[in-house]
């Protein structure tokens, strides 16, 4: 049997199609939506969500989940601000390293509880969602710095967040690099393939000699590091940070991942799909006000997108299963 790797799966093509329709309709209403500035903003906003969604994809593939993403991101964004309050001339790279390290530590806490203590990820990360957020607020009130503004950060850092390379926003380039790397690991590397095995059947994966606990811990750390990166980039891009950055973001991230075709039961899905899901959700958010829908609807839209896509998945699965059954019955009479 010949088997070619298509650049995009059926699900991903579906998202691209939905994106094109949405962009076409919105542009018809307001041509500025597809203007240089509009596209620039769209990709910038999608970049941060993409980083979060790609990290979450790794977890969901192994049948885990991280509901604490918003809080971890808030914590690392706040860290970036605090670093600049302490020392206005910190080099950008130091802030990036600090943010990524802090995200990785948060991920390691989640991962240790899930992998070593075998507590379900849902419960652990629902708990750490509030623990990390509380630490964020506690930190803000302890230091008395409730908000960090752009003028307190170094110009270099802000330029890093809003800069472009050859017309492409730097944040988008970073997101693309991460996406390509994660895609490569998931498709080609042994450890990446093992994640799918763990998610498909954890018990069988263990019997097959896959170090499931180690892999799950590693995935939590990597995903946390990506969230940390996203937090620093959020700080650099928006320039204003308080302790509530990223509140409720977990909904958008899980929605992006699920819309992107990553099965919530684990064992299937791609980082590319999740990134497209993030792009679609960001585009919807950008298009809502243009189409005359108040921005307040965004949460409802995210929730509805999540529900719609898992329902669609189930319908497609059911049709596929019944077709296979029919074919088998036809063959065997």
């Amino acid at each position, binding site marked *: 049997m010949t088997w070619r790797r298509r650049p995009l799966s059926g699900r991903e093509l579906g998202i691209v199609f939905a994106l094109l329709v949405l962009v076409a309709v919105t542009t018809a209403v307001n041509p500025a939506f597809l203007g240089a500035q509009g596209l620039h903003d769209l990709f910038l906003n999608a970049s941060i969500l993409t980083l979060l969604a790609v990290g979450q994809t790794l977890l969901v593939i192994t049948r885990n989940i991280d*509901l604490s993403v918003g809080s971890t991101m808030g914590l690392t964004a706040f860290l970036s601000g605090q670093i600049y309050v302490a020392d206005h001339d910190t080099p950008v790279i130091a802030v990036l390293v600090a943010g990524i390290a802090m995200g990785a530590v948060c991920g390691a806490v989640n991962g240790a509880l899930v992998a070593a203590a*075998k507590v379900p990820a*849902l419960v652990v990360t*629902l708990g750490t969602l509030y623990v990390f957020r509380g630490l964020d607020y506690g930190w803000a*009130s302890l230091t008395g710095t409730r908000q960090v503004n752009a003028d307190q950060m170094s110009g270099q850092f802000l330029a890093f967040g809003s800069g472009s390379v050859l017309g492409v926003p730097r944040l988008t380039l970073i997101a693309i690099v991460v996406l390509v790397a994660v895609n490569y690991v998931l498709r080609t590397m042994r450890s990446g393939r093992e994640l799918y095995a763990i998610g498909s059947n954890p018990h069988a994966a263990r019997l097959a000699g896959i170090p499931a606990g180690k892999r799950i811990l590693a995935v939590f750390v990597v995903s946390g590091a990506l969230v940390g990166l996203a937090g620093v980039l959020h700080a650099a891009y928006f320039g204003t940070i308080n302790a509530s950055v990223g509140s409720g973001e977990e909904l958008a991230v*899980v929605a992006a991942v699920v819309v992107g075709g990553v099965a*919530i039961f684990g064992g299937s899905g791609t980082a590319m799909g999740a990134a497209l899901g993030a792009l679609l959700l960001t585009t919807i958010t950008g298009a809502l006000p243009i189409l005359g829908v108040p921005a307040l609807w965004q949460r*409802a839209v995210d929730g*509805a997108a999540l529900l719609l896509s898992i329902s669609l998945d189930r319908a497609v699965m059911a049709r596929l299963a019944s077709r296979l059954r029919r074919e088998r019955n036809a063959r065997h009479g």
Partner: protein
Amino acid sequence: MGEELGPGRQLTRALVRWETALIVLCVLVFVLGAVSTAGFADRDNIGFLLVDYTEVALLALALLPIVLTGEIDLSVASVLGFCSALTGALWDAGMSFEAIVPVVLLTGAVLGAVNATLVVGLGLPSLAVTIGTLGLYRGLAYVVLGDRAVTGFPESYRPLATAVVPGTFLPLPTLAVAGCAALAAVVVHATPLGRSLYAIGLGKRTARFSGIRVGRIKSGAYVVSGALAAVASVVYTLRYNSARADNGSGLELVAVAAVLLGGVSIFGGRGTVAGVVTALLLMAGLRNLLFLNDVTNEIQNVINGLLLIVSVLVPVVTDLVSTRGRRRGAVRRPTEIR
């Protein structure tokens, strides 16, 4: 309880120990509070700390049957938020409060039925579904009411959520919660329906082959959960005399924490109403104690989050300790919930 269902005396003993530990902790918190903090043991303060946990208690009781069957409902606080926003919008539109309450209760049940349709009808994982409806219902609350607040609910009804039973310090809502808990205890522990909840949680296939109508019972649990969350919304709206779209946001954490701290297994099939009630008392006492000592809400959330983690961590650790030295794999527990 648990003798008939548990895989052995080991489990029963662990259960007894868990609930004993809870009661001890609870007494400890109240004694410590009375000794250390002036005003904690005052009659009025005890009444306040009880009434302050009315909504959480209702949400926890709503969650209990669902968690017993091995599912989860993270949307309870969003149902509360939507119902509160709807109350505000209808009141604003000039509807009478007598007419609003049944509409809101029905709406809560319908929102629960939507969850049921997705989880039971389509067979989707309850975690993903209720994260989705958590966002959807909260979002719809903003759609209905925007970000304004509606106040000025009728003076004649507000005492229902704030007054005490004449001659005592017991608030009326607490009395209602106690009634709900008693009803839940009877249904869960003393009826065939209650036994079915445990059976489903312990093994869905076995339950189905034993003639238990798994789908119908699970759907019922979700509808009841929605209706109870709507009741909680009415209390919340009256107690604060304010209907807002963000009412009760984040309460799902507190409710889930209370249920799991109460000794209910996140994998289903294990737990008691008494345990949950004790956990609620413990958390209500702790919250009030921290509040009196000027600990902010955010730090309280940290404590709730830690309680949640600890309550799932402790059984795992005690299992590990108690199985050491025995045959490996003697106690195998599922490691994933979806």
